[in-house]
């Protein structure tokens, strides 16, 4: 037996959520899983896709091997400037690039090259229940409404109130 206890080979189990991954590490892990043809399931953070994806929802991402992104798809991409993972909706296409925007952000993310797109959200779960709204055929209408600037002004005040309430609860 290895005499020093530190030398004994050990396997540790980490429960979901215990692992806090920095943005770039999450990107690398996501890429590695998608490259194997598997889906990637993780907890989304933030309010930029409210109300279709809420802070803390668990999302499952598929690679794009099944085809090109379609209008209204919720895509997972690497932001070319920050190198962080972003989960936002495709609202348009320009040559080999995509126009992407959060459902609840004032501005578009800009034009994102195809090579930055990692995958497409295929499933959203909230408190153990599957959420269908926002990923079906209605995604096209949502994308068109966002493009027309109709959706965000409606949701932004709701999110601000939700944030304030959450902060109060934490205190």
């Amino acid at each position, binding site marked *: *037996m*290895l*005499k020093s206890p*530190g*030398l*004994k*080979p*050990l*396997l*540790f*189990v*980490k*429960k*979901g*959520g215990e*692992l806090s*991954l*920095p943005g770039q*590490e999450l990107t*690398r*892990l996501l890429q*590695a*899983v998608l490259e*194997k*043809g*598997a*889906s*990637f*399931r*993780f*907890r989304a953070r933030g309010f930029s896709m409210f109300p279709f994806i809420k802070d803390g929802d*668990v999302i*499952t991402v598929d690679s794009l091997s099944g085809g090109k992104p379609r209008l209204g798809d919720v895509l997972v991409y690497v932001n070319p400037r920050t190198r962080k993972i972003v989960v936002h909706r495709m609202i348009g296409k320009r040559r080999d690039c995509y126009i992407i925007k959060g459902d609840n952000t004032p501005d578009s993310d800009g034009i994102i090259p195809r090579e930055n797109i990692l995958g497409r959200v295929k499933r959203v779960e909230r408190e153990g229940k599957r959420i269908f709204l926002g990923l079906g055929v209605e995604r096209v209408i949502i994308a068109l409404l966002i493009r027309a600037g109709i959706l965000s002004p409606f949701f932004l005040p709701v999110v601000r109130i939700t944030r304030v309430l959450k902060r109060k609860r934490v205190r």
Partner: protein
Amino acid sequence: MKEKEESMKANVSLETVYVPSEDIVIREIEGELIVVPLVSGIGDLEDELFTMNATGRAIMEKLDKKKSLKDVVNELSLLYKAPADEIEQDVVGFMEELLKRRMIVKVSRA
């Protein structure tokens, strides 16, 4: 009872070559080796993930389709300056755990 426990153990042989399973993704993250099992085609960060200490990692990195477990034990014996027969038990125990969790697979019998 003890017999039942013995039969539950994964059967690890020193003559066998083992490799990491195709159903896991291994990545080094902030100096730590993270293993994500792919269960039913999903790598799930909300489910169980695995990490290992430096010795476990050294074993995992030596599983290369060529070395039998005996070769791995001998290499570790040199690395840690410990007699091979002394570390064998720990390595086999660790490999049993990996095999039970389907993190490694057998390649062939030498």
